[in-house]
């Protein structure tokens, strides 16, 4: 196993363009943007469907259709339509992020014990209060698992940005393959994998912190 590219100090110099820290930073930036945009779109829709029970077939079908779209194909299509740049990459990655968050928000609300929701209504909560004070906190464990799976998927898939001339850790994979430098490809694969593990750890900690202790004790 040739780790020379990964451990060469020159490749870790932040000031050189194309160095690992720079690529890492742009990679995280793409992941962050895709997660923020994807959540902003999927979460309200998922909560609405879960809360009202209306349009659940949309949630299920959109979720399944979105999952089956090949990201690379979608990306190439977007580049043909929109040209190069960050926008086509963000669209392709956001489409990847939406299904798990949408379905987990919907499933999280649907799986709640309806007696709890009835009780909330019974004590005089308004629909908005039922959603924000009862349904959402109790659905958080399911919701977070959807978010974490979206985050892991997008960390791995954001490497496609390099296929259309952008940065990110995919540069190491694609440039390494193009010039037959497997040490570089390996470095890219390792950094992506480590980033995925770290991100999942951080989200696991966040999950412990934001989920009500009452819910945790019950499991």
């Amino acid at each position, binding site marked *: 196993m040739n780790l020379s590219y990964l451990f060469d100090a020159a490749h870790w110099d932040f000031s050189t363009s194309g160095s690992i820290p720079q690529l890492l930073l742009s990679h995280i930036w793409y992941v962050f943007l895709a997660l923020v945009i994807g959540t902003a779109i999927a979460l309200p829709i998922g909560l609405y469907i879960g809360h009202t029970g209306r349009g659940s077939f949309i949630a299920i079908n959109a979720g399944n259709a979105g999952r089956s779209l090949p990201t690379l194909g979608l990306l190439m299509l977007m580049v043909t339509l929109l040209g190069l740049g960050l926008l086509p990459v963000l669209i392709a990655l956001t489409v990847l992020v939406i299904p798990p968050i949408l379905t987990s928000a919907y499933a999280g609300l649907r799986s709640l014990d309806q007696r709890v929701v009835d009780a909330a209504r019974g004590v005089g909560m308004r629909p908005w209060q039922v959603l924000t004070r009862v349904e959402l906190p109790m659905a958080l464990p399911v919701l977070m698992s959807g978010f974490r799976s979206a985050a892991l998927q997008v960390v791995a898939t954001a490497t496609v940005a390099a296929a259309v001339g952008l940065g990110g850790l995919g540069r190491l994979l694609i440039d390494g393959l193009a010039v037959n430098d497997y*040490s570089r490809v390996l470095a890219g694969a390792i950094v992506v994998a480590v980033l995925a593990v770290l991100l999942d750890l951080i989200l696991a900690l966040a999950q412990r912190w934001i989920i009500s202790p009452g819910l945790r004790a019950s499991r």
Partner: protein
Amino acid sequence: MKRFGRFSLVSAAVALTVALTACGADEDPLANDNGGGSAAPGTITVGSANFAESELLAEIYSQALEAKGVQVKRQFNIGARELYLKALQDGSIDLLPEYNGALLSALQKGGAAEGVSSPEDVLAALKKVLPSGTEVLEQAAAEDKDTLTVTQETATKYSLKTIDDLKPVAGQLTIGAGPEWQERFQGLKGLEQVYGVKFKEFKPLDAGGPLTVNALTKNQIQVGNIFSTDSSIAKNKFVVLEDPKNLYLAENIIPLIRTTANNPTVTGALNAVSAKLTTENLTTTLAKVQLDKQDTASVAKGWLSENGLV
């Protein structure tokens, strides 16, 4: 939900382990692949680079061989030269369509010697540096060169005719090419050393493929590496910059083959293809794939029957 958290961590760890062991045994994954070489005896595995023309030529070779009763296994769309040459040397593939000049520059340390640019000189120099166990057959008259290509507007705006004209303005321009151009002599390095041309930015795209053409028409790159037989040049009225210092050598199409896979039948079939292949008929045939979106196999078949080879 704790279980899910653990599961995703474990799967990430498994993915990492798989990635490590897959690359771990050897730094070159192709080296462990006996897939191509261990095909039925007498079978020739034909490879190609990852662009339309290479695939078309590989398909023409394959069908010409099959017409002579040779068993053929197709392993197309492998990648850039740096990648498929390794595959050829380790026996994963037996035969490839190559370009004499580009192959010479890839094999010769420091690139082709000065003054070597005619098809004959290039072929002679190439024969001296071929990897052991491989040989080239007869080269075709057909040529397909790397070019620096700009749009009509860019050419007019900066009055560009040759690569030399780029020198004063390159600092404002972005160039797009395959990622390998960043490190190849006949890419950015040669442009800087031979012409003193240094671009503002390099965008790693594809080797003269749809991404590069698209970016050029949208002016997201101003200079693109497009192959001279590419039908998109005529279609988009692109301007191909002349190369007065011959950074890009003769690029005649030539079959590169493993000696162990070669025999008189194979040589005969491939030399017959080279004898009929011209830049003109290659350009029109390639346009059928690129512009008319016809199937490569049927286009190859059409070319072979037009030229009386099947």
